[in-house]
């Protein structure tokens, strides 16, 4: 069973550009070897950290989104742990809460429909801006 994952990691700032490429390639290669598909790879580049990690004030951020088998993620995590040049890493499954979010979007569509109806019917009777504003606020809290 393959599902969508996101892998993010921070590389130490002392590392040269060639070595950064090597680290990224080694991770992407393991994904492609296991018949995984890399959807997106965004490099933020050097960025100031919110707090020092191992006395480093900066870090090289890389995020990879891919569709892989779950067993590969375990091996990736093991490999990232062994790398001394990687300060921190994080792995997430992305399609965890999609079911519930789908429910939410349905509910929002319903509320929009009702709001349109009420706005139309009230707009014909009387056009007072204050009244409509109050109506919108009360709707927002109901969600």
């Amino acid at each position: 069973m393959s599902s969508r994952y996101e892998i993010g990691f921070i590389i130490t700032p002392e590392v040269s550009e060639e070595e950064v490429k090597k680290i990224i390639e080694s991770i992407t290669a393991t994904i492609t070897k296991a018949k995984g598909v890399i959807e997106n790879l965004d490099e933020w580049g050097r960025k100031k950290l919110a707090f020092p990690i191992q006395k480093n004030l900066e870090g090289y951020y890389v995020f990879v989104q891919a569709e892989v088998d779950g067993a590969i993620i375990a091996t990736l995590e093991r490999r990232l742990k062994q790398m001394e040049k990687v300060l921190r890493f994080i792995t997430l499954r992305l399609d965890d809460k999609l079911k519930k979010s789908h429910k939410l979007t349905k509910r929002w569509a319903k509320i929009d429909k009702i709001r349109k109806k009420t706005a139309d019917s009230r707009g014909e009777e009387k056009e007072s801006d204050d009244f409509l504003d109050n109506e919108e606020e009360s709707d927002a809290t109901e969600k």
Partner: protein
Amino acid sequence: MQPRSNTGDGKPPKKYYSARKKFCAFCKDKITLIDYKNHKNLENFISETGRIFPARVSGTCAYHQKQLSKAIKRARQMALIRFTEEKKRIT
């Protein structure tokens, strides 16, 4: 003895003004999944010292508050958001 009443000496009861109603910022923008990577947005929901605001203060709904707290904790792990910061003393 006379029963105690709000009106007391015939004056009308004090009027309390209710605060403006809060609403969930994520429901307003119709965001279903909160991403931990856009830390600039998340910083609106933490205090000066780095604590997460409770839902009754920020007004976020239960579903989004649960996601938000997780997103902030993930952002902290990746050093995008500070864990704590000492309060600056005004002398």
